[in-house]
């Protein structure tokens, strides 16, 4: 009996070993990829964020915490705060537009749903900068809207729309909307309609059913969508550049400027680390309430 068990044990451990080799051969390339293109650059960024900047860009191999202490500058604080506020509004507006849209979409047949999703995705096969510049053509003082309104005599002076905070916000919402629609649609279309009927059956009005049943059950989608909009809108510097005309400096712009204009790599790296930490905190909060799979 004992021998038998021993043999059995050996056998299983053998197969385990075999499995391990198999698993490594499958996961290995991915692991290598992540190491090369994610882990190493990240470590590199973290390291240079603790070094002194070189005179003509680059870094000097001297350890310092100055890059981080310099962040306690109220100017930077303002930029970070502005970024967060803008990201908040972008997320909220995207949510308010996408939720009803995704809800109506979920009522359609699967085939029609797929078609609508395709229509949403279609513009995103064109480069984002080109599309943003297209908007700039429509919105600027001598752009399509102002020209038409002036010609019609509705206004006597062009309305300034471009290069404002509003334009930046508009650009953000426009660029990031699909990232809200898709997880929401995913979450809402999974909603079991009989639960809504059950709530009605138990005397819950439409409003009450929404707040007690529909909202809690689609919360994962809301969180997933919010995160997918919130995080990119923190560092989408090109949107602020094109739409805000450099007037609205955001965290993303700050990082870009530190690297490009100021040639202060360590400072840019320190900002990046802060941004990454902030992102991780948001994600951590998310995993407390939602399911990471909904982000995919």
């Amino acid at each position, binding site marked *: 009996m004992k021998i038998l068990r021993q043999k059995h044990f050996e056998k299983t451990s053998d197969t385990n070993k075999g499995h391990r080799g198999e698993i490594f051969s499958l996961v290995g390339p991915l692991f290598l990829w992540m190491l090369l293109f994610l882990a190493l650059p990240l470590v590199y960024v973290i390291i240079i964020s603790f070094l002194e900047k070189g005179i003509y860009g680059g870094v000097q191999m001297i350890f310092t915490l100055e890059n981080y202490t310099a962040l306690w500058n109220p100017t930077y604080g303002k930029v970070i705060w502005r970024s967060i506020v803008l990201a908040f509004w972008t997320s909220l507006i995207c949510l308010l537009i996408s939720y009803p849209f995704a809800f109506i979409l979920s009522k359609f047949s699967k085939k029609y749903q797929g078609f609508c999703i395709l229509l949403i995705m279609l513009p995103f096969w064109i480069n984002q900068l080109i599309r943003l510049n297209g908007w700039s053509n429509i919105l600027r003082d001598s752009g399509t809207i102002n020209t038409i309104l002036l010609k019609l005599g509705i206004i006597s002076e062009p309305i300034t729309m471009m290069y404002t905070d509003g334009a930046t916000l508009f650009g953000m919402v426009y660029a990031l909307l699909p990232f809200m629609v898709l997880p929401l649609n995913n979450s809402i279309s999974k909603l*079991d309609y*009989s639960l809504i009927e*059950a*709530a009605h*059956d*138990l*005397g819950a009005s439409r409003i009450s*059913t929404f707040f007690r*049943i529909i909202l809690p059950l689609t919360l994962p989608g809301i969180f997933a969508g919010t995160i997918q909009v919130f995080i990119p809108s923190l560092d989408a510097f090109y949107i602020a550049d094109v739409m805000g005309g450099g007037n609205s400096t955001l965290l993303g712009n700050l990082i870009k400027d530190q690297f490009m204009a100021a040639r202060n790599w360590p400072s840019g790296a320190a900002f990046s680390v802060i941004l990454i930490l902030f992102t991780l905190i948001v994600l951590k909060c998310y995993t407390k309430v939602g399911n990471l799979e909904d982000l995919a």
Partner: protein
Amino acid sequence: MIKTDREPIVRLSGVTKDFGKSEVLKHIDLDVYEGEFLTLLGPSGCGKTTTLRIIAGFETPSRGCVYLEQADVTALAPYKRNVNTVFQSYALFPHMNVFDNVAFGLVEKKVPKPEIKERVEKMLDLVQLKNFGKRKPHQMSGGQRQRVAIARALVNNPKVLLLDEPLGALDLKLRKQMQMELKHLQKQLGITFVYVTHDQEEALTMSDRIAVMNNGVIEQIGTAQEIYERPKTKFVASFIGESNIIEASVTGFDGGLIELTAENGVVHGRGSGFVQDEMIYISIRPENTRYSFEPVENFRLRGIVKEHIYVGSIIKTVVALPNGQRLRLNQHPHSELPAIGSAVTVYWDMDKAVIMHTAEDTLYDLIEDALLNRPDLAVKQGRRAEGGKSF
């Protein structure tokens, strides 16, 4: 048990439901009385679930009216009706624990918190889930979830409880047990149950009255005994239990008896309302069908014994008539069996046989075709739904 002198608690009057071009319900008239256990029984697609959903308010009838306690609720939203539903899939709220699920309706009604606690706990006790309040639905077995669904509906003290195949997902043993529990619960609480099932045995076991539905029409409504012993249509006779159905024509009236000539012989029966040369069906249950080696008065139906099938409590003897039709005769397992291949006369107690018109089915279709072009005649159509097939 059934207080027919009272006003019905649920009344469907001429309810018709179209989904696109298909007519799912064809002019349903149905009265349900307080405290009764009424079952809507029929094969899938017969319209029984749609009928239930119309009472609940999830579907609006295309034509006709729904009354709850004499009030017209046809256009009333489901959340304003004093009925509750036990869903086939249970539809428990996955993000709430058992207590909150059961309390849902009471919270909506703004019942004070201590009272909610008391009523929910009492109800959980009643369905034998006393210490399960903190569990989430996914942590429970099918039978337990079923009880939660029932408790969640009953805690609101509904006038009528609607149950849509509530035991469909349970295994046979648990289903039998829950049938009894549900029946006892209904008697104990005195709440009116409208129960949907396709399982005829379940319907016979639990119901005070059964409405047998087919193709969007109530073919017959009555007690289990009435439905089983006096089926009004061929469909009812064959859907509920087993029946030998013999097609014959009325060939004469002989005192109190009707002479019926089938393809394979002449038999006699009792009944009224039949005319000379009319085509009819004779329906006779296998347990009431007998055989004899000797000639039998009034029965000249001869056949050959084909096989005996032992099914435990009974033996089913199959007798083939000359035209190939096979009749089933239930025998006591210890009775002497006729030899296979022997010629026998098949007979039965005339009072146990049911003679049914056949023309109705075709007449029905004729009326229906006519009504498609003459909607103004629609009112007359209702008679056949309620009164079965007596013209």
